[in-house]
């Protein structure tokens, strides 16, 4: 309003210009504030100093195996927006109302803020998944390909291993090792794309803050077609309180989303006797993926 005060009636064109300017400024300044006001309350406790034991190199000692907490959101097959597996609900005839709906996507409506074209593609992905006629209609996990991040870290609890200068997250289901560099090394060139990206971290009190880049565009967020581009950058916060990890991952991908958005899941440290993690081999024994695709298409053989 301050800007429009000087605009007189005689300067009609200028008034319009000024009004446009005011509107633009209002959108630029006020809208983010409105969106912030609409953001849902965080589920993660605030970061505090670490009071527990430390590793020899001074990191908070958080090593151990962790399990995902939420019923209805276990396993590799869930819909990030619903927090449930719609196929499981359909197949079992269960009433989804009877299951708690974890709020994984922390936006006011629980929806991922896709750009319109991206929401359309996501809807198409989902439709294709349930009526697959091409192998690429299936998510990468169904084809024994890597899940990628952040799907892997949203999907299952990690085993955390710490050595000087590193935090390693192992995901037993896919025998995946994620290396998080704490040594401040230079980032990888953007042109290098990886399923699991390049991860750089630092400790702030009880919170491990990780930045992930160099992710390829082939890993979805879930089985049901929620996706990102190869420009995705993720900011993650692993906050360790008691025996819990509060995990928040914020996706920045201006090619696909209208604004950054955050997903939240929680893990609890496993105690007692923990089974040894043994070999998982998926692709080596894969014989069924062709059966998941309607036979009408001329499919290439899975492999020799």
């Amino acid at each position, binding site marked *: 309003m301050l800007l429009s005060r000087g605009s007189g009636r005689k300067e009609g064109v200028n008034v319009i210009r000024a009004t446009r300017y005011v509107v633009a400024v209002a959108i630029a300044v006020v809208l983010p504030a409105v969106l912030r006001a609409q953001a849902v309350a965080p589920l993660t406790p605030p970061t505090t100093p*670490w009071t527990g034991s430390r590793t020899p190199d001074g990191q908070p000692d958080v090593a151990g195996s962790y399990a995902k907490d939420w019923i209805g959101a276990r396993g590799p097959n869930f819909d990030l927006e619903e927090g449930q597996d719609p196929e499981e609900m359909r197949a079992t005839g269960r009433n989804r109302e009877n299951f708690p709906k974890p709020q994984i996507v922390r936006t006011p409506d629980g929806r991922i803020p896709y750009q319109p074209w991206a929401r359309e593609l996501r809807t198409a992905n989902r439709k294709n998944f349930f009526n697959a006629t091409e192998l690429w209609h299936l998510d990468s996990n169904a084809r024994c390909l890597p899940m990628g991040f952040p799907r892997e870290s949203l999907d299952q609890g990690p085993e955390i291993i710490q050595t000087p200068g590193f935090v390693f997250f192992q995901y037993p289901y896919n025998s995946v090792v994620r290396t998080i560099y704490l040594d401040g090394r230079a980032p990888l060139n953007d042109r290098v794309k990886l399923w699991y990206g390049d991860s750089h971290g*630092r400790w702030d009190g009880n919170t491990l803050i990780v930045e992930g880049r160099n992710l390829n565009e082939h890993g979805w967020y879930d089985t049901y077609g929620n996706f990102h581009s190869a420009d995705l950058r993720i900011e993650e916060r692993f906050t360790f309180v008691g025996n819990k990890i509060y995990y928040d991952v914020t996706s920045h991908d201006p090619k696909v989303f209208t604004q950054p958005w955050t997903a939240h899941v929680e893990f609890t440290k496993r105690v007692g006797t923990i089974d040894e993690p043994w070999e998982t081999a998926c692709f080596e024994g894969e014989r069924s993926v062709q059966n998941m695709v309607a036979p009408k298409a001329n499919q290439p053989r899975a492999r020799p």
Partner: protein
Amino acid sequence: MKSVNSILVVLVIAAFASAEGIGQTQSGTIPRMPDGRPDLSGVWQVLNSAAYDIEDHHAQPGVPAGTGVVVGGEIPYQPWALEQKKRNYANRLTEDTDAKCFLPGVPRVTYMPYPFRIIQTPGRIDISYEYVGALRRIFMNGTPHPRGPIQWWMGDSRGHWDGDTLVVDVVHFNDQTRFDKAGNFHSEMLHVVERYSFIDASHIRYEVTIEDPKVFTGPWKMEMPLYRRIETAPRVLEYYCYGFNDVFQLPPGR
């Protein structure tokens, strides 16, 4: 208080963490864990042509010549197995795990021409390989092999220290993996013993004893150095080669 705490942590981590790669090459001493054991942590790779043929071999198109890594020169095959090895050589472009992009077994994964990272803690030593994202967990807590029969691609690894040498006993293999691209092979009776010992801070002597009473007339050995990747900030990247074949099927236009 909080920021002082954070700064201290950053300083402590920086003091310990800035050394990977070129910083670890000072001669004379080998890196050790707080408990005094040798610390094998880091990124390593072989520098030889064993991936193509572990025996002595001359060059072929796409295959560099090489002196072998088999101690004594030749693998002591039983007569039937030598014939099988020849058949394997003939079908190597379709039937070898490297052609299919399957997990390659042990010790072959060590001498694939890709780096691997050793992640050492007192109770377990994990090795994360770039090649097909293979992961080995070597249990160091004194537990025995699980009771078989079990057939795994990468076997079951149990390790212990013999002085400054890491000794890893590996059993429970399947009969699908081979030792190289030249068709050298084993059965599910394979028993592998690996010995990792520092030559200096940047070199490991890697010795392997192979036993398989179904295929060989007696035990035999391989030996080769492992080289530390001494460039600043070495990385193990990804080689998920099965993502390159037609199962992958990327969406058109992307």
